[in-house]
């Protein structure tokens, strides 16, 4: 750890002193820059990742394999209970569904952001970012009030508009979980999509229209294909984030909505079986990593095809 901290120091100093280039300090920083180039700028971030990400993940990994000698008993226990496979499947299903609906809802908004005038865009951004500052627990309780059988939405549908005879089961089931999670993931999704979409040259769409395509066709055949890499990246990140949810499924789900993250939390804080909790977390991490690798492999292949 001391080393990590030491490694962080020189580049920071070199940055701070880069402007008044005087004496030995400037020489040191120059040497660093010459030796490592711009990579030196990544040192602080890298050190931070090692300290607060790689090390804890290492500890989790170790905990799942040692007790105190090497053992596979935690994994054997997981393999023995068919309910664990089911919980993994439920988590993946919930994550896929929330990523999917986030994309459906996020894509049009991101497109509007790209097209909007700067003032309107700023206003839209403010509204997109607003939910970020609301605590996740508060949001869950708010959704309960809105979605329950005697909640706001059902009261309007059944009591005021008489559209339905009986209230819809909107919460304490899969529907509630997905609504709560999409609400949480949407701003993140929109921001990723927007930042990638704004690189698309809108003149190409105009050109298509100039050559006779109607606006819809120009959008579908020019803008959409150009935005696909953004879609893939946003979908993947949303999915990965969704895999780690445990508060929302716990509060808005029913008895069938048990996620791996919920189990991890139970085993760490309730049962105090850190070994088994770590094993569950490790498998979840492995699944996520596998998904990421697959994504990057496919992207690379695609890039290769484009170049050919």
């Amino acid at each position: 750890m001391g080393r990590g901290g030491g490694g962080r120091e020189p580049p920071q100093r070199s940055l701070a002193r880069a402007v008044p280039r005087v004496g030995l300090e400037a020489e040191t920083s120059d040497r660093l820059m010459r030796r490592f180039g711009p990579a030196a700028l990544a040192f602080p971030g890298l050190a931070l990742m090692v300290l607060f990400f790689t090390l804890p993940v290492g500890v989790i990994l170790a905990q799942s394999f040692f007790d105190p000698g090497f053992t596979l008993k935690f994994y054997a226990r997981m393999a023995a209970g068919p309910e664990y496979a089911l919980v993994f499947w439920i988590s993946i299903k919930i994550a896929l569904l929330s990523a999917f609906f986030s994309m459906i809802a996020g894509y049009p908004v991101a497109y509007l952001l790209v097209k909007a005038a700067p003032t309107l865009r700023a206003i839209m951004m403010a509204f997109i970012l607003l939910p970020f500052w609301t605590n996740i627990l508060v949001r869950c309780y708010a959704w309960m009030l809105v979605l329950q059988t005697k909640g706001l939405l059902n009261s309007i549908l059944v009591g005021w508009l008489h559209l339905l005879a009986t209230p819809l089961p909107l919460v304490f089931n899969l529907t509630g979980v997905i609504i709560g999670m999409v609400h949480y993931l949407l701003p993140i999704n929109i921001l990723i999509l927007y930042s990638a979409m704004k690189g698309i040259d809108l003149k190409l769409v105009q050109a298509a229209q100039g050559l006779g395509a109607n606006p819809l066709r120009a959008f579908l055949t020019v803008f959409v294909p150009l935005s696909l890499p953004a879609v893939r990246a946003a979908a993947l990140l949303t999915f990965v984030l969704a895999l780690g949810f445990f508060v929302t499924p716990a509060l808005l789900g029913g008895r069938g909505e048990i996620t791996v993250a919920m189990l991890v939390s139970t085993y760490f804080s309730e049962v105090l079986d850190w070994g088994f909790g770590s094993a569950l977390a490790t498998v979840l991490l492995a699944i996520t990593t596998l998904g990421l690798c697959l994504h990057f492999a496919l992207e690379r292949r695609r890039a290769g095809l484009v170049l050919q």
Partner: protein
Amino acid sequence: MRSLKAWKGTAGRFLAASLVASGAWFATTGSAAAEDTTIVFSGWGGSWQTAERKLYFDTFEKATGIKVVDVPDVNLTKIKAMVGAKNVEWDVVQAIGMWLPQRAGTEELWEPLDYAAIKTDGIPKEMIAPNGVGVATFAQILAYNTDAFPAGKAPTSWADFWDVKKFPGKRGFLNQPRYALEAALMAHGVAMKDLYPLDVERGLKLWEPLKSDVLWWEQWPQAPSLLASGELVMTLSSQARILGLLQSEKTAPVAMVWNQGIMTVDFLAVPKGSKHKEAAFKLISWMLDPEHQAEYAKATDVGPSNTKALALIDEKTKERLPSYHYQKGELVALDNAWWAANLDKLTERWNQWKLTN
């Protein structure tokens, strides 16, 4: 120097406490540098801890000169991590009973209490353990919506919870095997004294007919809110939350049943490796005092552990306290040792049961 280091750790971890912490640090280093006079209490936070601050800690500071810093969100994981890292920042902890017995695969997390230094006059024997002593009582009870079931037609026991014909409507329960098994067995004729060891498989089976009638909620605050809104017609809840709701909203359509409630006890314990054991024992003694407990019970509806405290409380307030109803034989005490020993197995079985039924 060591205590100073521990201090900084605490302050860093608990933003809310940090202001108080630095204030207390200046105070102690300024005046009584020779005496080691600051201890950290970790409790559940919220209004219960605000009352503890006022009625236990402030008076304790005045009487003894020992400073108490209180931090919220006590949890066993943090205690295990602190003890494991040999850097214990908490000196007195408000623990649920299930935390005291040693778990398989876990080292001893608690200091033995020195009962020469801690006065336990009036504390029932079953609340005095080598590593913890009972301080407060809670009751997990059956609560119902009075719009759905007005007086005269109200449920009076767990058996009524299972009677869907006579008491139709959605029921709620904590999404955990704890209390769920006790309630199911009591509803089907198991006497309170014969409850433990629990017949797990029978208890789970008894829940099956209710499958489509039960909403399994996750957090205690959900229960009174779902009940008051009419989403649930009856549910497990804690007595203090139902009474608290009725106190802040007199017209809330909720009521509760003491009969067959499950009493839980909060214990005071000292994490292994605390650097201020002597002072910690003094604070524990202070919090067991019948007069202090009586004041606390009056302010919070949390039951006193000290039977002598009940004598200092008027009849009307007594009616609100679990300790009183336990004495009357209406409540059964949760068997902490049984749950601590079976928690891992039951967590697994519970999830399996929920997913396959």
